[in-house]
């Protein structure tokens, strides 16, 4: 059976990025992941029909780059995003419109506010049982041992 193998370094892409990029091929291929030593993952791509191997490889590499960018954007904005959604869900909806740019004082105030909000959310998340799920169950509690209830 024809297949292609791509080795991806974990120093360049996170495991999550590799996982999604692999998933994104599943319309055309079966994708098998396994660790190749400590710092790399081997991605084995087997086309489901007669899709071109090289095209699939290129698609995978392109997706890795895109996903890396998305991962960074998400990480940088997760706390701010959560704040905005909570605000939207809890405000009463009476908002004055600001059409023009902000004054330097307002700008400074805004920067301060973003910083404060991010720190606050960060603190909240660090607390046990915080609202945001930032790690897997295994990462948080360790793998469940056999027979433990």
């Amino acid at each position, binding site marked *: 059976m024809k297949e292609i193998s791509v080795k991806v370094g974990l120093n360049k892409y996170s495991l999550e990025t590799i996982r999604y990029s692999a998933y994104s091929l599943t319309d055309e291929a079966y994708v098998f992941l396994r660790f190749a030593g400590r710092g790399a993952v081997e991605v084995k791509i087997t086309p489901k029909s007669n899709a071109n191997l090289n095209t699939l490889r290129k698609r995978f590499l392109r997706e890795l780059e895109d996903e890396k960018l998305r991962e960074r954007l998400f990480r940088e904005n997760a706390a701010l995003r959560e704040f*905005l959604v909570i605000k939207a869900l809890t405000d009463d909806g009476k908002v004055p419109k600001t059409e*023009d*740019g902000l004054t*330097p004082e307002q700008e400074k105030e805004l920067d301060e506010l973003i910083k404060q909000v991010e720190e606050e959310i960060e603190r909240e998340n660090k607390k046990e049982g915080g609202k945001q799920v930032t790690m897997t169950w295994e990462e948080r509690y360790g793998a469940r041992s056999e027979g433990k209830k």
Partner: protein
Amino acid sequence: MAPGAKGKNSRAYLLNWRKVSGKRLITNDFGYFRFLSEKEFTRLMSGTSNLRPALHQDLSKKGFVRNWMDFDSLSETWRLKNAFLHFGPGLHIFVITLRCNYNCLYCQSGALPERVHKTDMSFETARRAVDIAFQSPAPSITIEFQGGEPLLNWKTLKKTIEYARKKEVSENKELSLALVTNFSLMDAEKAEFLLANEVSLCTSLDGPRKVHDRNRPYSKGSSYDLAVKWIKYFMRRHDTQKGGSRIFKPSALLTVTRFVLRYPEETVDEYVKLGLEDIFVRPMSPIGYAARVWDKIGYNSREFLSFYGKVLEYILKLNEKGVRIREKNASLLLEKILNRRDPGYLDLRYPCGAAVGQIAYNWDGGLYTCDEGRMIAQQGDDVFRIGTVHDEYESIVKSGACRLCALSSNLEQQPVCFRCAYKPYCGVCPVYNHEAQKSVWGNMLSNERCAIFMGIFDLIFKFLQDKKKERILKKWIPEK
């Protein structure tokens, strides 16, 4: 320093992107979008200090630049865009009977022959259904009567309309009533009663006579002639009304089977000829009975999109000449894209409308997440059942099926959708996924419904890059 000033570097706020006609389309949670060149996109991603001031300003206003966000205005935009989250089910679909006197090729509602009376909804069941509908926290509700052919169970239909109108007064909740009928059993007396009770009327119109009659065979004559006759009648009544109860314009639904695909322009002309201002080009789904005959009447996403593109191009040409006609899918999406408002499109939002936006009440009192969920039950699979008319509203919205649909239609949890530029305007259908991909979650990479909507979005965003087309499309929706 005003936004756009040079020297102020910031990072981009969370956004998704996609290439559309050579440009990078970027969108965000608030529903804002912007087309960028490759160079502008790269600059935005590596910090905003090198962006043109005007571009920087526009991106900031739209919430794409994290240090230049107007929290109040953006969260308000998000709130209005997702206003439906604060209401309960607004649409209540009553399957008054499963009987039908037509033999439509694709009948997705799973209709039964005219003589099988045991599938008529009793008034007692309908009354309980109305009581549940009025328990919804939604400030206004719509009860839509359909079937089968609902006029075959006129006795229950009439009594239910009277009861619902009385309840509207005692409960002080705004009520709209709608009837979906093939018009074959319509007569002057029924028409007067429906108009006096402000029931809006909707029928099917599948294009020119040869296509409509083929799609909807009727043993006693031409289904096309009957549809056209009554559309004209109710249109005339609408146009000549003089106060008293409101008379709504009749509307029509187009079900796109394989036979319709050959007649994009003729189909639109048919609607224009009758004075209908909206044509809803809905793709058919391989759900219920339609799944069994899909190889005869169905099509793939490419075939549908080719038809859809021709319809849209033709409508824009007609608009240029001053003809009033819109395509409904596109106008609903444009309301989301350009006005960032929820137009109440239950199929394209997240979570989807299942049980939290609509409830389907089967003739026997069984309740389902939606009419499609009910059709699946008719094939013996009760996965989308949320209760019965004897249950309390609270237990219905807390049902397992309701939660299942809310979870699986949440695009934040759909890996492909979460990364898709169309996420702010789109939605997935757990019933479709369950039927077509054997899992309520589905897999959007090989999902034909996703392919169709992605194609429709691509087309709309392509048109929005064309000034002339953009100007026309903007007239399709209310000015913000």
